[in-house]
Structures are given as C-alpha cells and as structure tokens.
C-alpha cells in the first residue's frame, strides 16, 4: 500500500528564494502530524505543492502514489491560510457547492456542526466575523471523508475557545485510513493531539519523529524542544 503522502528529493525555487531544498518525507495513514517551523520556513509551500497549486522545481511529490492532479484532488482536503471562499455566497450555498463537487462531502455532518455553532445557514460569508468565517472554512474542509487533510495554520489568529473547538473537531474526525497534517508555529496548543512532529526551517527538514519519543528523549515538551532547536 502506498504511503498516503511522500516527497522525494523535493525542491522548489522562487526568484530570489529557495523555498524548499531536497525534502524527503513519508507519511503513513491514520496519523495526525504536525508540520512545525517558523514563519517562512516552507510549510505553506509544501502544502501548495501537494495540492498542485505550485509545481516542483525538482523532485517529486506523491499523494497515495499519484502526482497531484484530478485524482489526488478527490482525496485531499485542503484548508489554506487565507480567505479563499467566495464572500458573496451564503453558508448554505457553500455547503451545496462542496456537495456538488466533492463526492466524499458529508452534507448532514456539516449542517449539524454549523447549526450547533449557531451560525445561520442563509448568512453570507462576508457578514460573518473573522473567527466564525474560519470555523466555517474548517467545518467544510473537515466534513469531507478525505484520505489526506492539509491544514495550513488552522488555529493562528483565533481565540482560545475557537482553538479548542478546532482541535476537538480534528480529533473527533480522526479515522484510521486518513492522515491529518497541521502546519503551525503554535506548537504547545497542538502538541497533545499529534502523533508525529516534522521540524522544518529554511526549506529543509530538520527532524521527523513521533512526539512521545521526543518527549522521552529530551525530557521536555515538543514546544520547549522546538525553542531549543530554533534558539536565535
């Protein structure tokens, strides 16, 4: 069985910047993985490559053994670090949109989560507060039964209660044949739900290890270890 996510000697260059250099990663199913690194380390670039929004300069990236394309987009659910949904659409219209294009979208689950949060279905996205907008985006992304979830900074800029809600949603959505990759620089908040941690800086992978191992070896939290490793 193919690993759900694999990078082989992956490099990506932009004019004036080497965003990723010789990245090699293999992720198996049923894991919650943290992609941890400072701002500008290449986390977003890696996720965009996985979604076919960028093309590699060198090397390959594979989802379930396939290069990014129509087939991988069916099994990858991506939450970008920006507002990318049509502002003028209502929540109901967005749910219908997702249902239209994604076979694995679970409409009832999405509707239930939206209603439980007290968000009106007919509200247009642009009328919602920033925090609510982010919750809606997360609900839409997590309501798909995908094989790979790529969440780019899902908890940044969100209040602690919303953060708890987001982490809770991620855990409750957990499935043995899906893998969730969370990229963030707020490590202490997500540590307890991670299986594995990948440290990335300046486009290079520094470390890829199970979280409990890191704690045992270093006698400190991943957050503390991260600060050690990235001390200025």
């Amino acid at each position, binding site marked *: 069985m193919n690993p759900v996510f694999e990078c082989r000697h992956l490099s990506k260059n*932009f*004019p*004036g910047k080497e965003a990723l250099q010789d990245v090699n990663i293999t992720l198996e199913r049923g894991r919650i993985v943290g992609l941890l690194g400072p701002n500008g380390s290449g986390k977003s670039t890696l996720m*965009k490559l996985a*979604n*076919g*929004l*960028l*093309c590699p300069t060198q090397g390959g990236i594979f989802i379930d053994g396939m290069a990014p*394309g*129509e*087939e991988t*987009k*069916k099994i*990858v659910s*991506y939450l*970008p670090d*920006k*507002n*990318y*949904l*049509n502002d*003028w659409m209502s929540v109901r219209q967005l749910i219908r*949109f997702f249902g*239209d*294009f*994604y076979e694995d979208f679970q409409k009832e689950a999405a509707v239930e989560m939206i209603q439980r949060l007290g968000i009106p279905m007919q509200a247009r996205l642009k009328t919602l507060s920033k925090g609510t907008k982010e919750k809606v985006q997360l609900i839409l992304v997590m309501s798909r039964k995908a094989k790979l979830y790529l969440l780019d900074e899902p908890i940044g800029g969100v209040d602690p209660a919303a953060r708890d809600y987001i982490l809770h949603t991620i855990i409750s959505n957990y499935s043995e044949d899906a893998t969730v990759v969370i990229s963030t620089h707020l490590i202490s908040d997500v540590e307890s739900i991670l299986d594995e941690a990948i440290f990335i800086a300046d486009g290079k992978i520094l470390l890829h290890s199970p979280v409990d191992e890191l704690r045992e070896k270093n006698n400190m939290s991943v957050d503390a270890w991260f600060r050690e490793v990235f001390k200025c």
Partner: protein
Amino acid sequence: MLRKLMKYEFRATSRTFLPLYGAFLLAALLLAVFDQMHQTWGNSLPWLDAAALVTGIAYGILFIAVMVMTAVVAFQRFYRNLFTDEGYLTHTLPVKTHTHVTAKLLVSVVWCIASIAVFFLSVLVLSIFNLQPAAYGEIFADLVKWIPESNWESWAFLLEIFLLVLLYLVCGILFVYMAIAAGNIAGRHKVALGIGVFIGAGIILQLVYLLGITVGVRSTFDLWKDIPDYTFPSWPLHGFLLGNIVFFLFFSAVFYILTSWILKRKLNLA
C-alpha cells in the same frame, strides 16, 4: 463536472449582467417613452426635453457599459478565478485543468451572444411606439419567399459566415486567456509579460494570416478571375471562408492547449 462549473460561473456572472441588462433595457424603454411624450406634448411640458436628453445619455452610457462589461467580466473572471486567492478554491476542485478553460470560454461566449441579443432587443424597445407591423410583416414575407428559391449555396454561405464569426470570437477570447496565463508565469512583471505575449503572438498571428491569404489567393488565382461574373458555385469565396475557418479553428486549438498546459504545469499561486 463541466456542467457544474458552468452552473456556478453563470451564477457568479449573472449577478453583474442581469441587473445591467435590466437597467439598459429600462433606459431604452424610458427613452422611448420620453421621446414619444416629447413629440406629443413637447411644447407644453418643457422638462420633457431634458428628460429625453438625460435618458438618452443614460442609454448611451449603458450601451457602452454592456459592451465593456461583457469583455471585462469574461477576462476578469478568468484571471481572478484562476490566478488570485480564488484560485485556492478553483484549483483544488477535482477537475481537469482544461475543463476550467472550457467552462470559462463557453460562459463568456454565451454572454457575448446574450449581449448582442440584448442590443437588438433594446433597438426593438426604442421603436416600440413606432412599430410598423406591416413593415416587419413584409420583411418576414420576403424571407419566407426566399427560402424555397434559395439553393444550397446560400445556406452554405450563411453557415460559413456564422461559423466564422463564432470561431473569431472563440479564438479572440482564447487568445487573451493565453496571454493572461502566459503573463503569470513570470515571477515579477506579470502584466508586462502578458502584454508582451499579447503583442508578440498577435504579430505572429497576423503574419501567418497574411501568409495564408497570399498563398491561398496565388494558388487559386485562375478561379478569382471569374468573381466579377458572380457565377455559382463560387468556389473561391467558399475557399476563402473555409480557409479562414480553418485558420481560426487551428489557432483556437493552439491557444486552448497552451492555456491548459500553462495552468497545469506552470501554475504559481501566490
């Protein structure tokens, strides 16, 4: 998938066009009304002068607006939907890249045709008080008479001209799409590159066209001598039209393939 994409394209674009068309036709109606009132009561109600003038200007402005918006929306949708933040949603849909191009192209063509139809409709509305059903009836009768008298060649001409106009439109849209896509390959100075490609490809296109015409006319020169006599079947004319059709069909395909390829292999979303 194509149908779904087109459904959402229409939904997004009709938010602009339907109100615009509505306002345009309303202006036409108001103009016709004020003009008629002016003719009947112009002397006793001087403000009708101003009213007719204002609505006339509004009609003119909206006329230009419809033209401009049809072009703007066609290209702006393409750019925004595929090359800006909206692209995060568009490009992660489980759809082949070229399907996106097809969807946008078809929707743009439909709006072009719709805009033209609305223009004709507005002309009809303008003359609503001066309708002469008799005149229209005469034209219609003439047409009906002509059908059995015409031969296959007239139909062929009609079809060829229709196809040519359509292909010209399609090719033009795809040409701009390609320039936009090509421009985006650049890391910086995307607009400059886009314009450069636009001009460069435009020049190439014109040269090839000239070449085609020259070669075509040269090789069939004998046939062209007969044109003044206007005998049927007029093969040179057919040849000319068909040559044009092939030309635009070929380049439409080229631009389509190039645009799709750039979207698939050279995408660099910020």
